[in-house]
């Protein structure tokens, strides 16, 4: 039991405890939900930063729950990829929790919001940390059910309809994943991912692995909003409250969709050329469809939702390439995208908080009245478009270089084209919302309150500092560790099981 291994259960128990306490006492004590929300997510963030240190010192750490050695009970695995995802998730969760202290004043029953928010964070941490396939399904359900209810938090017409569509498609996706898990259990008669990977390598998949790969691709693909299954995202994100669309776009579709897809396909089933070509094709398809749908939108949050679909296409293209450089580029873009996309959604929330509208046509020249929001949106817009000094440029560059190296010139071309169109619709947002003459109806619009400014500014700083992650000193400790885990593929089983003895 290495000393640092207690991080993993705490990463789940701290938000979970915060959620239960908020539900228990939140109704009576007015300011308690905000305090508990911020403290619990801050605790989880500190734990995940400490976990990066533990992974660098001890390598892969396995935590046997209830004292049962892995194949028997449930095991939690902390390796490079887990630490990377934990930091991404809890960083955004903490900043969104701070943002919604002020933003959620506009909504009733704030304690309900913070309970559901902390449950979603606990669910996502549970998915990222676990080393057991059925346990991954259970915590995937926790995070999904919490997000269904949060999308419908404003209880107005559009939100309820979007929440219903999202709930039905999400539940169907989870049931496909569950069917895949049953088939794998019957084939390998174990649920521990490492044990299952060793058994699959030993038995050789055959048709069962084919069917299970199709089921997982559909199930996790729908959670990651990849193009053929993206129908729920353009409705769910705009109607959700702004902090929740930031969490959905920035963290949920990445941890539940992309992370689960990589962990299952790379470490458990083992990547095959067919699967990686399917992944790359879906990635490019999402990139193109997302970008061209985004350019035509006039509702700010709907435009950002479509742009999430196209950026997820970049991540999946990068990871689907299979080469170490491609995977590193994909993961780095995953981190960057969750930073600047949640920043842009928080900005749209700030604009809606002050002006009450999301329609770009009605806005104009807000930069004069809302300088902080204008500046942070500019930073977010520039880094999503991939303009040099900012983080978005580096990750897109790595993905394109990796695609060219892997001989996929067509995919590289589409990636560049999509990046140009991204620049176009980002300029559209800046032009209509912030530049230009001040629309007279917004004469006495005020800037957003303190907490919202704090989280937006810190996210903008992260956008700028994102590029530093590539520095030689910093890169080994964070990014290469994560991409190393994926490029090792099914050695994951050998590492985890050797860790146990």
């Amino acid at each position, binding site marked *: 039991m290495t000393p640092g291994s207690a991080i993993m259960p705490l990463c789940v128990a701290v938000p979970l405890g915060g959620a239960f306490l908020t539900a228990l006492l939140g109704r009576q004590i007015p300011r308690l939900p905000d305090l508990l929300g911020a403290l619990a997510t801050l605790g989880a963030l500190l734990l995940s930063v400490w976990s990066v240190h533990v992974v660098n010192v001890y390598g892969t750490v396995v935590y046997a729950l209830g004292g049962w050695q892995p194949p028997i009970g449930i095991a939690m695995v902390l390796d490079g990829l887990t630490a990377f995802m934990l930091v991404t998730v809890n960083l955004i969760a903490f900043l969104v929790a701070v943002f919604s202290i002020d933003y959620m004043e506009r909504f009733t029953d704030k304690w309900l919001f913070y309970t559901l928010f902390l449950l979603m964070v606990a669910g996502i941490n549970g998915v990222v940390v676990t080393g057991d396939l059925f346990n991954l399904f259970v915590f995937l359900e926790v995070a999904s059910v919490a997000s269904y209810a949060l999308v419908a938090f404003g209880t107005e017409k559009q939100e309820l309809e979007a929440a*219903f569509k999202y709930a039905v498609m999400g*539940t169907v996706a989870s049931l496909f994943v569950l069917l895949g898990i049953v088939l794998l259990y019957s084939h390998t008669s174990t649920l521990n991912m490492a044990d299952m990977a060793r058994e699959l390598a030993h038995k050789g998949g055959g048709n069962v692995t084919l069917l299970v790969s199709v089921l997982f691709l559909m199930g996790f693909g729908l959670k990651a909003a990849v193009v053929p299954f993206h129908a729920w995202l353009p409705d769910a994100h705009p109607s959700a409250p702004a902090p929740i669309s930031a969490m959905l776009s920035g963290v949920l579709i990445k941890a539940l969709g992309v992370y689960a897809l990589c962990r299952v396909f790379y470490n458990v089933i083992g990547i095959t050329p067919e699967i990686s070509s399917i992944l790359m094709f879906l990635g490019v398809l999402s990139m193109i469809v997302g970008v061209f749908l985004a350019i035509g939108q006039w509702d700010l949050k709907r435009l950002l939702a479509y742009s999430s679909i196209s950026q997820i296409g970049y991540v999946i293209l990068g990871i689907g390439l299979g080469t170490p450089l491609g995977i590193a580029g994909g993961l780095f873009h995953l981190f960057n995208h969750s930073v600047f996309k949640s920043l842009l959604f928080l900005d749209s929330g700030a604009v809606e908080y002050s002006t009450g509208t999301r329609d770009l046509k009605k806005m104009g020249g807000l930069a004069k009245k809302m300088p902080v929001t204008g500046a942070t949106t500019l930073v977010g817009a520039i880094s999503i478009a991939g303009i040099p000094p900012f983080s978005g440029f580096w990750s897109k560059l790595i993905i394109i270089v990796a695609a060219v190296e892997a001989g996929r010139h067509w995919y590289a071309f589409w990636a560049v084209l999509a990046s140009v169109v991204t620049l176009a619709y980002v300029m559209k947002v800046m032009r209509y919302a912030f530049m230009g003459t001040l629309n007279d109806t917004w004469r006495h619009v005020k800037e957003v309150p303190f907490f919202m400014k704090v989280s937006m500014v810190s996210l903008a700083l992260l956008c700028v500092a994102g590029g530093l992650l590539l520095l030689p000193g910093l890169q080994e400790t964070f990014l290469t560790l994560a991409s190393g885990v994926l490029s090792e593929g099914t050695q994951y089983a050998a590492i985890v099981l050797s860790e146990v003895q």
Partner: protein
Amino acid sequence: MALYLLCLVLFSVGVYGILARRNMIKIIIGVIVVEYAVNLFFILVAYKKDGRSPIFSPDADIPVQSMVDPLPQALVLTAIVIGLATTALMVAIAMRIYEKYGTFDIAEIRELRG
């Protein structure tokens, strides 16, 4: 083998129900049928020919070999309650939508939304 097939036929009936119907309650019923099919698949995988239920009793000493597989049964208990949780949430959302739009038919709702 045939039992697994019948279970997958039930699964497909449920998926058909979800994708091809327009009434919200019918879609929820399709989801419930899919949940039943997956839970049934768990139990079918766990059965051992003329096995016994995995509960030890003080008087008769049941040999361990003849016991049915307890692990999928524990997983089914979890899956049943998760199914109940998602069904309850979906029904609550459907009732609120019915209260706002006055109909359960998602096609009409799309027109009303305009």
